């Protein structure tokens, strides 16, 4: 390194502004362009008679973006123009998305409140005809709770053990293959897990206990849901286990505690809040699944407490069935069931997020 290289720079630095001051667009320009764009759009749309207010807004937004870019490009330069245009685009993406999502939420609450009564939560659809205004989702709620509960009982131990293997014991290709396929499994559509349980449990295994008849049941739905939940639980547990600081394990090993005991007594309890969060999110997702339940639990209008025998419904399936029902009272039932389902899912999700937040603070 010699000073000669330092002094050999080109006379004009490539990136240096001569002055810090730049010409800036006055503040009134952006709103002015907006107003002008809307006016032009309105004139074009109504003048040519090609549409209504929605088209005016859309066309106005496009004109605004173009106008803003042109103005900024002329006054402030290309970089600033790009910055402004992207900023406007990003803001408008947000506005664009709020409309449908807000509509979904609003419809859900306003329509769902219609049948929010004791009858809805206290009765089933048994003997409810097309002209009956009442009828409820009691049987579906029971179905959802039982199916999700059983699925959780199956998934949690399996998922924890699998994650422990991947994090604590697994090495080499086999562990990599398991991680890879857990990732792949997250992408399996729910309807495929439903078909799998249909082909495996309902049509092949369960007829053995069932006098050769296919055994549609809540338990079969629980099996399908656990195939769906397993990868989620494994992944979140895996991440949590990796977050447990090594010194904690080392402390236990130094005391002469065997590895399995260290895992069960030290590592798992430390990671527990995070694991519970992951499990709750998995439950929330499983509770909202319709397709597997439709295929393997069969649905049904009557209350059935026994998940191992005969058809069972679930809230999500109830929504779907009511949506397809011709009765003029069905839509109200569908929306109220949807609201109930969303409430259940959101309670789980919010609890999980709060738990995760507290956990994060604790770390």
């Amino acid at each position, binding site marked *: 390194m010699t000073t000669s*290289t330092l002094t050999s720079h080109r006379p004009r630095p490539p*990136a240096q502004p001569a*002055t*810090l*001051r730049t010409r800036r667009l006055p503040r009134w320009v952006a709103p002015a362009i907006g107003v002008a764009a809307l006016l032009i759009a309105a004139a074009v749309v109504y003048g040519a008679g090609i549409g209504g207010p929605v088209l005016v807004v859309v066309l106005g937004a496009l004109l605004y973006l173009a106008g803003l870019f042109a103005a900024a490009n002329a006054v402030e330069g290309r970089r600033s123009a790009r910055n402004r245009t992207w900023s406007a685009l990003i803001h408008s993406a947000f506005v664009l998305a709020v409309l449908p999502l807000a509509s979904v939420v609003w419809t859900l609450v306003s329509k769902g409140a219609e049948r929010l009564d004791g009858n809805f939560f206290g009765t089933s659809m048994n003997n409810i005809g097309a002209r009956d205004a009442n009828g409820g989702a009691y049987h579906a709620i029971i179905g959802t709770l039982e199916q999700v509960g059983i699925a959780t009982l199956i998934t949690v131990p399996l998922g924890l053990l699998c994650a422990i293997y991947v994090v604590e014991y697994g090495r080499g290709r086999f562990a990599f293959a398991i991680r890879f396929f857990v990732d792949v499994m997250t992408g399996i559509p729910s309807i495929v897990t439903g078909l799998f349980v249909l082909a495996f449990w309902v049509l092949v295994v369960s007829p053995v206990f069932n006098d050769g008849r296919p055994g549609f049941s809540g338990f079969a739905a629980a099996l399908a849901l656990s195939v769906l939940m397993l990868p989620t639980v494994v992944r979140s547990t895996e991440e949590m286990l990796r977050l447990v600081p090594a010194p904690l394990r080392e402390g236990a090993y130094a005391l002469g505690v065997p590895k399995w005991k260290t895992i069960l007594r030290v590592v798992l309890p430390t990671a527990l809040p995070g694991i519970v969060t992951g499990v709750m999110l998995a439950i929330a997702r499983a509770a909202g699944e319709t397709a597997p339940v439709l295929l393997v639990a069969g649905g049904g209008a009557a209350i059935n407490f026994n998940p191992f025998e005969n058809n069972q419904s679930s809230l999500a399936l109830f929504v779907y069935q009511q949506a397809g029902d011709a009765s003029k009272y069905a839509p109200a039932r569908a929306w109220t069931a949807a609201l109930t389902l969303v409430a259940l899912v959101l309670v789980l999700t919010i609890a999980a997020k709060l738990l995760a937040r507290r956990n994060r603070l604790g770390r």
Partner: protein
Amino acid sequence: MAKRIDASNVTAYYGAFKAIEDINLTVEPKTVTALIGPSGCGKSTFLRSINRMHEVLPGARVEGSLTIDGQDIYDRDVDVTAVRRMIGMVFQRPNPFPTMSIFDNVVAGLRLNGVKKKSVLAESAEKALRSANLWDEVKDRLGKPGAGLSGGQQQRLCIARTIAVEPQVVLMDEPCSALDPISTLAIEDLMFQLKDKFTIIIVTHNMQQAARVSDRTAFFSIEKTGDPGRLIEYDNTQKIFSNPSVKKTEDYITGRFG
């Protein structure tokens, strides 16, 4: 190339918290100025307010006047990006862009400024890397990820990235605090060479480093936690370290406080 910085009555806030108060100081062109002082005394805040990086944090603002060769940095008509191009910054931890190669890191600033020609980029990259004393170590692997270098090399890569846009002033926020002694030495050597071209302001916790590299030293301090940091003494480095005129400076230099 190098420019002079004048601060008068600079006060900086984080929301309601006043971090520094009434800083007055002039930095001469082509010198190395060291900012020293105990933790939390606001020296980094002052440094970050010079290239308007302070205001990046939510709720942060600056009062008073900061000028570079007489131009007000905080003037309403001033383009922030122009300020930052003119006043480059090297951070405490080496922060090369993790997804970019060594070459792409060095020319990132030039690309932002619309330099597209391959030959110009290659020439500038080589020059900057040579200036940062890194060329010989990386010339054979310019296409490799910049984050694959050692800590000291990464920091020199960041210096190269900063000087590639040929700023007038280079701010360094404890550039060696995350580095080993050998890398630190390499960067200190580099500062000696760079001051031929740039005005350098460096924040450091290491008083030997301040004494070794700087021409002028500014000592910042606070009364107690929660108070704003103030400039206690600003003088030639030699004077500060041999015969400070304020008792508090002497206490800090000799290790009796801070």
